[in-house]
C-alpha cells in the first residue's frame, strides 16, 4: 500500500485534482486540539530516524499566544538515505500542506524548511511549490478566510551532516555554526529564536494531510499496532532494483528483497544489511531474513528502523573497509564540541585505517570496541552513538574479517 508516493503529484493542479489541500480545509473546521488528537490517534512516529510519536511532540508546545515555529527537517544526509528527495520530486505539496496543518495545530504562523545545501534542484522545487500554494490562497495571510496566517521560509544548509540534528539545525537557521544545543530546554519550549518549535522530518509532515483525510483511527490500522502507517525505504547496494519504496510497516525483509528489490545482483550473495541509515547496528544476512520491517521487530533483532536508509552489503564487500568508510564520515562530520566524539571518532578512524592496511595487532580490535563503548551516550547529541553502534555491531558480528586483516589474509581486499 502506498500513500505518499501513490501518484506523481508534482504541480498544484494535479495535487488538488487528487484531493490535495482538502486536509487543511478539514483541519480549519476543527479545533487545534482535535487536530493534535487526530495525529495522536494515528500513532504516526517521526520518520527522520528517532521514531518519536508526532502527536505527542506537537502536544508539548505551550498553549499560549506567544510566537511559535514549525520547522521541516529536509537536511537528509544520513548515508543510505534518499527518501525525502523522492517526496520533494514527486509530491512536494504534501509537505507544505503538512506544515500548514502542523502550524494550525500548535498555533504557529511561521514555518521554516531547512534543506541541505547540495539539494539545489530540490530547493528550487520547494520554492516553486510555496509560490503555487501562496497564489492559490493556501499560504499567507488569512488562509481560506479562516483568519489563520501561515508563511514558510526556505533556508539552505551548506554541507554539514550535523545540521540534521534538530538543535544544530536551529542554530544553522539562526546563521551560526551547526552545533547541537544542550537539552533541556527542548525545542518545544525554547527552539528557534528561543520560541517554542516543532521540528518534523519531510516524510512525517507529508503523511499528515493523508491522516487528516482518512482519520487517525484508520491510519493506525495500516501496518502494525505500534508501527502504524507506511514507511519509505531508500535502498542502495548490489540488488537488482535499488530505489525508494513505500511499504506498509511490518513487511518481512525476505519478501521485500525478493519481490520489491528483485533479489541480489547476479553472482553476489547477501552478507549484511544496514536497515535504517548508516548509524544503526548492522545485521547479518541470516538475521535479516528473519526480521520484519517495523520498529518492534527490528528493535528485537538489535537494530533500528531509523530513517529507512537501507544499505545492502554483498559478499564482495570487505566489512572492515565498509566500517572504515563510515568512520571516516562520522569523524569528518563531528562538530567537535564534545571530547568523546571529536577524539573518539578520530581515534576509531585512525585505528581502522591501520587495521585495514594490516598494521595492527589483535588487541587493537578490542580497543576499537572499547572506544566505541565509551563514546556511547556521553555526548550532547547522538553523533557519537551513530558511529559507536556500527563499530560495536561490525566487530561483534564480523570479527573474523577483522582478524583476517590483522593476519593480512583478507581475500576481498586482495582481489
Amino acid at each position, binding site marked *: 500500500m502506498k500513500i505518499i508516493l501513490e501518484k506523481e503529484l508534482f504541480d498544484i493542479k494535479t495535487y488538488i485534482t487528487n484531493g490535495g489541500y482538502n486536509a487543511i480545509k478539514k483541519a480549519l473546521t476543527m479545533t487545534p486540539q482535535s487536530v493534535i488528537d487526530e495525529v495522536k490517534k494515528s500513532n504516526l512516529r517521526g520518520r527522520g530516524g528517532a521514531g518519536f510519536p508526532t502527536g505527542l511532540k506537537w502536544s508539548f508546545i505551550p498553549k499560549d499566544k506567544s510566537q511559535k515555529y514549525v520547522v521541516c527537517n529536509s537536511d*537528509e544526509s544520513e*548515508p543510505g538515505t534518499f527518501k525525502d528527495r523522492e517526496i520533494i520530486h514527486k509530491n512536494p505539496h504534501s509537505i507544505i500542506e503538512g506544515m500548514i496543518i502542523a502550524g494550525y495545530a500548535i498555533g504557529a504562523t511561521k514555518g521554516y524548511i531547512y534543506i541541505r*545545501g*547540495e539539494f539545489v*534542484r530540490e530547493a528550487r522545487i520547494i520554492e516553486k511549490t510555496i509560490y503555487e500554494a501562496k497564489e492559490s490562497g493556501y499560504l499567507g495571510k488569512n488562509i481560506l478566510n479562516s483568519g489563520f496566517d501561515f508563511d514558510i521560509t526556505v533556508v539552505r544548509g*551548506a554541507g554539514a551532516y550535523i545540521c540534521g540534528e534538530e538543535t544544530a539545525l536551529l542554530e544553522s*537557521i539562526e546563521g*551560526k555554526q551547526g552545533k547541537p544545543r544542550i537539552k533541556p530546554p527542548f525545542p518545544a519550549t525554547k527552539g528557534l529564536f528561543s520560541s517554542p518549535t516543532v521540528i518534523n522530518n519531510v516524510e512525517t509532515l507529508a503523511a499528515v494531510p493523508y491522516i487528516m483525510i482518512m482519520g487517525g483511527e484508520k491510519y493506525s490500522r495500516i501496518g502494525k499496532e505500534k508501527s502504524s502507517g507506511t514507511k519509505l525505504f*531508500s535502498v542502495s547496494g548490489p540488488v537488482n532494483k535499488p530505489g525508494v519504496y513505500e511499504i506498509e510497516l511490518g513487511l518481512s525483509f525476505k519478501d521485500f528483497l525478493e519481490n520489491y528489490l528483485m533479489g541480489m545482483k547476479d553472482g553476489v550473495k547477501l552478507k549484511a544489511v544496514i536497515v535504517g541509515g548508516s548509524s544503526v547496528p548492522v545485521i547479518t544476512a541470516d538475521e535479516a531474513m528473519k526480521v520484519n520491517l517495523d520498529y518492534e521487530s527490528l528493535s528485537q533483532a538489535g537494530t533500528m528502523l531509523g530513517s529507512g536508509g537501507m544499505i545492502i552489503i554483498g559478499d564482495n564487500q570487505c566489512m572492515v573497509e*565498509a566500517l572504515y568508510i563510515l568512520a571516516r564520515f562520522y569523524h569528518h562530520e563531528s562538530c567537535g564540541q564534545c571530547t568523546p566524539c571529536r577524539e573518539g571518532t578520530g581515534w576509531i578512524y585512525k585505528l581502522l585505517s591501520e587495521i585495514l592496511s594490516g598494521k595492527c595487532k589483535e588487541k587493537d580490535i578490542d580497543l576499537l570496541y572499547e572506544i566505541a563503548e565509551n563514546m556511547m551516550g556521553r555526548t550532547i547529541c547522538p553523533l557519537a552513538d551513530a558511529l559507536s553502534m556500527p563499530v560495536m555491531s561490525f566487530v561483534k558480528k564480523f570479527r573474523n574479517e577483522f582478524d583476517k586483516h590483522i593476519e593480512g589474509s583478507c581475500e576481498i581486499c586482495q582481489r
Partner: protein
Amino acid sequence: MLGEKIKKNYKSIVEKFEKKESALISLLYEIQKENNYISDGDISELSSLIDMPYSRIKSVLTFYTMFNQKKTGKYHIQVCRNLSCSMSGARNIINFIKENLKINEHEVSDDGLFSYTTVECLGACGSSPVVMINDTYYENMDEKKLRELIDKLRKE
C-alpha cells in the same frame, strides 16, 4: 572584493528573512556564485555591509564544507565516496578524474576549467555512484559517461 551584484542585491536577500542572521548562508552563497570562492577580503566587506562581526562570518564560513576559501575550477566536481557510492565504483570515478584531468584533490586544472573534491554522501545512493558538478547531480555515473560529460563541458 565583493562583486557589483551582491552589493546591489544584499538588502533584498536580507529582507527575505525574519532575522538578518538567517540570511548569512544565502549571502555567502551569492558571493561564492559571483567570485568563485570567498576571500578574507570578501568577509571584511560583508562584515561592514551587514554590520556583523568578521569573526562571526568567518566561523560560519569555515564550519560548512560547501564554501570554498580557495579558487576552484569553472566546473567544480564533487565526487561522493561514501559506502553506497564506494560499493558501486566511486574509486574508478576518482581515478579517472585524476588521470584524465591531471589534477589532485583541491587542485585546479591548467586551463582553469576543472577542480575536484571528494565528499561524503550526496543523498542519492540508489543511483550511485553520484557526482555533483557545480549545482547539478549526475547519477549512475561510470567512466564513459564522465568522459562524455567532461568533453561536453570543455566545449561550452
